[in-house]
């Protein structure tokens, strides 16, 4: 969806019915959207601009862009960020303009769109990631150095040397722990304040107790200090935490890229007929917005001038475009197809259809039971158990007659050796590996929980238009005297943006024999009458393409009712009987649909179809795909209620949908997926975003989710086995610091290596590359 291009559209004045005193705009609109709105100007006259480039995927693209612009004297700096698909330009004010650079990049063959980078959200994300990395760096530095000193102590340092080493360790460890432990301390404190125990509570307790006791031991010339253990613990746990964060950021930036392509700017027409560009956030009620054919309507409003056909499929799933005329109500998210429209904005912000949908989504979210992740469930058993064992050890040794330092020392050994390092890494490592595999195969994963949920799914609910189909029409049949007329009609159809015309034109594009028969030049006076059809003159006769009525077809041709989508053509030379043709179309199925549904059914999943479209096409689609349960003409709230009912009856539902109307049900479902062609509401809501056309990769995603869960369980089992061996050793007081340190690192490494096995497993899954089903 290229938003920013030159448009030259011929409009026949008679088709634009003025509803105000002002004259209709010129015959030709020449529009250039102004992207200088997105540039940022710093104090020294340096202008910055960020562009998101969707089709920049590899090192080749990166160096091509950098090389092209690096010798450009107009620019101060150009830098490509490949992970975020951003190109950042900097130049001195006056040396060039944002639009110039944008056009250069477009000419180079890249699909760019402006991106406002001084967004607060991005900044929050970045600082959080940085804080974690900072903690990680500090913990790593301190752990390495303290470990160095500890090894010296273990290898036999005594007396004053040992004390010196302990004091040095304390000097490094205490500030480092205070700094790097904050993510855990604050989370543990929050959990305790609300009366819960989470994994961070034993971690914080172990770290603080170990540091406290070590300090005490150091001050009293004691033999053992635990600074190294406390720091390594923090280091490993911070790795887990950082990986977790990294995965969420990755998915988030992917979604942001997708959203950058949605309309962010609109053309405004003021009272004098002057056009200007405004970001959508600045549009107010009463402003007049110009929407050209092929563009998405950016606001809710009423049509003032112009007639057109409007594609409602993103909003309610209807596959046939609807006519629109002055006075009709339109909503943001609809796509204008055939004629330019001037729309008076009637609603912004809270009062739009969109916010109505968002309200429904919030309600669905509140009603949905909170999902407890595997890590949560493990922690709820593990955390109290660890505390109990530690307490038990302490009191046991006290009763046995050991001094309190010794008992506490053993109890801390227990806390450290049972440290949920392996447990803390068990889930995030697997999820990061899984997310990178999914990303490689064109699936964006918003968070790790979604993958866990996906492995438990037993019901899959599809939306129809845009989800099972591509919303791309193909010619399915020709009737009557079609052969003689069809290539002529297809030539005429080339001049229109209407989906039926485009489908007809592309059906004939590759047939060279017919191309030679007529040349486009032979068609004269081509006109498009939005909402009706097209006409042209050919060798003195009149050629028409459009509805039954538009083509003046007499009733001897009975209406053919085998398809919803049809286009009539007629050719009539003066005094002769018209030649008539009928073309029927079908919405093209998304590749991989058949295979996906077959696989799902083979796995005993309940497959259902919910659509906002009319009964007849939905039924036909259900029969074609062998789906037994289907419902048509569903409104957004009905869909949502239906999904909630399924959930209450114990089904775990995966909802796959793309429209604005699917938003609430995507939220209400156990987990959800939407294709990247979907509306932004659907994409933001869904847990997964499918980046390519084929639904086949969903099979691979299911397999990935299953093995990821298996690996997480294996990791838990490994942690359990480790604990069963290590805990008795610690409880009976045999855990010297070196044993604890080695055991801890070893368990973490095994868990990480086990997670990496997912790469091997995933290579045999069914992704879309395999075969065409």
């Amino acid at each position, binding site marked *: 969806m290229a938003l920013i291009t030159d448009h030259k559209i011929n409009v026949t004045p008679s088709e634009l019915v003025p509803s105000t005193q002002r004259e209709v705009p010129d015959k030709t609109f020449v529009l250039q959207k102004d992207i200088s709105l997105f540039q940022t100007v710093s104090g020294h006259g340096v202008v910055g601009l960020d562009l998101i480039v969707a089709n920049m995927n*590899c*090192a080749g693209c*990166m*160096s091509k862009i950098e*090389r092209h612009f690096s010798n450009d004297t107009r620019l101060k700096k150009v830098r*490509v*960020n*490949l*992970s*975020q698909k951003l190109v950042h330009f900097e130049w001195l004010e006056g040396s060039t303009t944002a639009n110039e650079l944008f056009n250069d990049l477009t000419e180079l063959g890249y699909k760019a769109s402006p991106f406002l980078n001084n967004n607060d959200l991005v900044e929050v994300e*970045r600082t959080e990631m*940085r804080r974690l*990395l*900072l903690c990680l*760096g*500090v913990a790593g*530095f301190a752990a*390495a*150095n303290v470990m*160095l*000193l500890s090894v010296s102590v273990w290898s036999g340092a005594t007396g004053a*040397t040992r004390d*010196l080493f302990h004091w*040095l360790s304390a000097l*490094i460890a205490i500030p480092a722990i205070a700094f790097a432990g904050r993510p855990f301390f604050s989370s543990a404190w929050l959990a305790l304040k609300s009366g819960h125990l989470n994994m961070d509570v034993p971690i914080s307790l172990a770290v603080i107790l170990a540091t406290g006791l070590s300090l005490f031991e150091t001050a009293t010339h004691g033999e053992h200090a635990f600074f190294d253990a406390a720091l390594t613990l923090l280091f490993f746990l911070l790795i887990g935490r950082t990986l977790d964060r990294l995965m969420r950021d990755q998915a988030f930036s992917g979604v942001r890229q997708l959203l950058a392509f949605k309309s962010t700017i609109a053309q405004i027409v003021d009272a004098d007929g002057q056009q200007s560009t405004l970001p959508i956030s600045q549009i107010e009620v009463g402003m007049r917005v110009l929407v050209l054919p092929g563009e998405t309507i950016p606001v809710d409003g009423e049509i003032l001038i112009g007639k057109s056909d409007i594609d409602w499929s993103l909003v309610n799933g209807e596959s046939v475009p609807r006519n629109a005329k002055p006075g009709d109500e339109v909503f943001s998210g609809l796509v204008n197809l055939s004629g330019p429209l001037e729309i008076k904005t009637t609603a912004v912000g809270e009062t739009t259809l969109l916010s109505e949908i968002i309200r429904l989504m919030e309600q669905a979210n509140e009603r949905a039971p909170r999902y407890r992740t595997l890590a949560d469930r493990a922690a709820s058993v593990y955390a109290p158990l660890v505390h109990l064992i530690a307490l038990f050890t302490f009191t046991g040794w006290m009763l046995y007659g050991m001094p309190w330092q010794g008992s506490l020392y053993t109890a801390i050994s227990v806390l450290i050796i049972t440290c949920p390092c392996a447990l803390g890494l068990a889930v995030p490592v697997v999820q990061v590996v899984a997310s990178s595999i999914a990303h490689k195969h064109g699936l964006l994963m918003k968070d790790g929980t979604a993958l866990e949920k996906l492995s438990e799914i037993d019901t899959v609910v599809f939306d129809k238009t845009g989800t099972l189909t591509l919303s791309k029409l193909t010619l399915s049949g020709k009737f009557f005297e079609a052969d003689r007329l069809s290539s002529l009609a297809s030539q005429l159809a080339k001049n229109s943006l209407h989906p039926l015309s485009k489908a007809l034109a592309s059906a004939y594009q590759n047939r060279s024999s017919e191309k030679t028969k007529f040349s486009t030049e032979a068609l004269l006076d081509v006109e498009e009458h939005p909402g009706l059809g097209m006409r042209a003159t050919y060798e003195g006769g009149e050629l028409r393409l459009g509805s039954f009525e538009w083509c003046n077809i007499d009733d001897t041709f009975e209406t053919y009712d085998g398809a919803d989508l049809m286009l009539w053509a007629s050719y009539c030379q003066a005094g002769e009987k018209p030649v008539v043709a009928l073309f029927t179309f079908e919405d093209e199925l998304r590749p991989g649909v058949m295979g996906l549904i077959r696989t799902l059914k083979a796995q005993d999943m309940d497959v259902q179809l919910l659509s906002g479209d009319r009964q007849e096409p939905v039924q036909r689609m259900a029969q074609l795909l062998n789906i037994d349960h289907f419902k048509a003409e569903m409104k957004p709230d009905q869909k949502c209620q239906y999904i909630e009912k399924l959930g209450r009856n114990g089904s775990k539902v995966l909802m796959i949908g793309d429209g604005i109307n699917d938003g609430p049900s995507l939220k209400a479902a156990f987990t959800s997926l939407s294709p990247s062609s979907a509306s932004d509401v659907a994409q933001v809501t869904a847990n997964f975003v499918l980046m390519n056309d084929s639904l086949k990769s969903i099979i691979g995603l299911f397999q990935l989710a299953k093995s990821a869960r298996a690996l997480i369980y294996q990791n838990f089992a490994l942690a359990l086995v480790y604990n069963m061996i290590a805990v008795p050793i610690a409880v009976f007081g045999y855990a010297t610091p070196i044993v604890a340190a080695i055991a801890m690192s070893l368990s973490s490494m095994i868990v990480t290596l086990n997670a990496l096995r997912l790469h091997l497993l995933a290579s045999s899954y069914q992704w879309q590359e395999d075969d065409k089903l």
Partner: protein
Amino acid sequence: MSNLLFLIPIALGLGFLGLLGFLWALKNNQFDDLEGSAHRILDDDDKPLK
């Protein structure tokens, strides 16, 4: 024992230098584009010596 008086500060100092290097890299956005950096190193656009 007296060796330690030199060696320990040196060891700690080197470690601290490493940490400073990391902090410098973090501050200079070196970790913002991990994917791009991985590819950039293979990009062989140096001019050959004559």
